C-alpha cells in the first residue's frame, strides 16, 4: 500500500506543496526582515520626520501581533474582493503572511535596538557621525545580531503557519497531504507523517542559517 501512496505522481504533489510552502514562507520571511527592520527604525529613531509615523507603526504592530493569521488571510481575501482587486490567491496569502511577519520582525529588531546602551549612540555621535551613520554602522549591526535568536524562532513558526493558506484553497504542504488523504484514506497516518517530516526538513536549516548570520554580524 505504501508504494501506492508514495508513487511518483503523489510525491510530485507533495513536492509541489512543499515548494508552495517554501515560497509563502520565504517571501514572508524576506518581507519581514526588510520592512520589519525599516519599521523598527521608524519606531525607535528620534528624527522629526518619523515622529508622526511612530504611533502608526505602534498601532500596526499591536494589531497584527494580537489577531490570528487565519482571520487576516480571510480578511485580505474578502477585502481585496470587495475592493475589486483581482489577484491570485497566492498573492493574497503572501500579503497576509507578510503583514504578520513584518509586525513580529519589527518588534524583534526594536527590542534589539532598545536593548543597546544609549552610550553606543553617544560614541557614534562623539566621532562626528550623522545619526544615520551611527544607525547603520554602530546600532543596527548589533541590534540585528540580538534580534536573530527570537527571529529564527518566529520564522520557524511562520513556516508552520503558512498551512493556514489552505483556507483559501492554496495547495501547500498541508493541503497536498489532505488531497492525498482523500485518495488513500487508509494511508492517512503515513501521508501526514511524511508531511510532518517535510515541515521539519524545511524548518531545521534555519537554525544553521541563524548561527551563520550571528557569526557574520560579529564582524562588520
Amino acid at each position, binding site marked *: 500500500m505504501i508504494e501506492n501512496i508514495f508513487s511518483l505522481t503523489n510525491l510530485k504533489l507533495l513536492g509541489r506543496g512543499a515548494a508552495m510552502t517554501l515560497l509563502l514562507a520565504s517571501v514572508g520571511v524576506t518581507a519581514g526582515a526588510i520592512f520589519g527592520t525599516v519599521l523598527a527604525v521608524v519606531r525607535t529613531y528620534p528624527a522629526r520626520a518619523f515622529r508622526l509615523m511612530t504611533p502608526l507603526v505602534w498601532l500596526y504592530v499591536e494589531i497584527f501581533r494580537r489577531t490570528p493569521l487565519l482571520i487576516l488571510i480571510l480578511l485580505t481575501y474578502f477585502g481585496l474582493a470587495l475592493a475589486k482587486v483581482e489577484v491570485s490567491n497566492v498573492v493574497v496569502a503572501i500579503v497576509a503572511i507578510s503583514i504578520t511577519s513584518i509586525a513580529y520582525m519589527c518588534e524583534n529588531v526594536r527590542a534589539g535596538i532598545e536593548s543597546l546602551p544609549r*552610550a553606543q549612540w553617544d560614541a557614534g555621535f562623539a*566621532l562626528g557621525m550623522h545619526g544615520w551613520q551611527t544607525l547603520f*554602522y554602530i546600532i543596527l549591526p*548589533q541590534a540585528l545580531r540580538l534580534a536573530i535568536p527570537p527571529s529564527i524562532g518566529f520564522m520557524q513558526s511562520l513556516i508552520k503557519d503558512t498551512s493556514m493558506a489552505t483556507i483559501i484553497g492554496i495547495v501547500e504542504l498541508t493541503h497536498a497531504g489532505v488531497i492525498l488523504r482523500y485518495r488513500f484514506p487508509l494511508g492517512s497516518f503515513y501521508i501526514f507523517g511524511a508531511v510532518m517530516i517535510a515541515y521539519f526538513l524545511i524548518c531545521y536549516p534555519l537554525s544553521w542559517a541563524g548561527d551563520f548570520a550571528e557569526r557574520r554580524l560579529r564582524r562588520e
Partner: protein
Amino acid sequence: MTGENEAILRLEGVTKSFGKLVVLKGIDLAVRKGEVVALIGPSGSGKSTCLRCINGLEVPDSGRVYFRGRQVNFTNRHERREIRKHIGIVFQSYNLFPHMTVEENITIGPRKVLGEERGEALRRAHELLEKFGLADKARAMPDQLSGGQQQRVAIIRALAMKPEILLLDEVTSALDPELTREVLNLITQLAAEGLTMVLVSHEMAFVRRTAVRVAFMEAGRIVLEGPVNEVLNTDNERVRRFLVALEG
C-alpha cells in the same frame, strides 16, 4: 586678546537642566591651546554634563560656547557634527563598538566622517597603536581586552580624528589601580605633547602632575578656579574638605 593667550575654548554662563533638575547653573570657563584643565568636585556636581555641553552631546539651555573665537550653535545639527570633529571625548565606560575589531573601532571615524581612505586610516591606526603599546591588539575584539586596554583604545579612537581638544570624562573610574596607571600614563604623554585637554578626574595625584589649571565644581557651579597649585592648596574650607576626603 592675542596669540597664545587667546582661549581656544570658552564657556560663558552655560546652563543645563534635565526636567526639574538643574545640573549647570552658569558655567564660565576658558581653555587655552595646549592647556590641560581639570574639573574636580563631588559626584553630581555637573562635571560630566559640563563636558558633554562642550561637544554638543548635551545642548546647553542657555549661555554660549566659543570654539576658536566663534560661537557654536548647538541647535544646528551640522554645527554639532562639525564641532565634534575638532573636540573628541572619551567616556568612563569606554563605549567601544563591540562588534568591530580594535582597528575598525579606530578607523571608522576617520573613514566615515573625515573621508579618509581605508589604507590611510589603517596606517594611522597602527601607528597610534604602536605608539601606545597596543600594536598586537589591532585585530582583537574589544571584549578580548582588559579594561585598561579598552580605555586606551577608546582614547586612540578619539585621537585618530586628530582633535584639537580632547575631553576625558572620568576615564579611569571603572579601572583598578594598576590599569588606571597605564591609562593615566598615556594621558600624561599626550599632555607632554601639548594636546589641549579638559578632563574630569578624581585622581588628585594625576591632576597635580598633569593639569595646568583646576576648576572645582559643586552643585552646578564652578566654586573655585585657578592654577593647579593654587586650587589644590587653597584655604577655601569646602574645597579643602573635598581634597582631604579624596587624598586621605
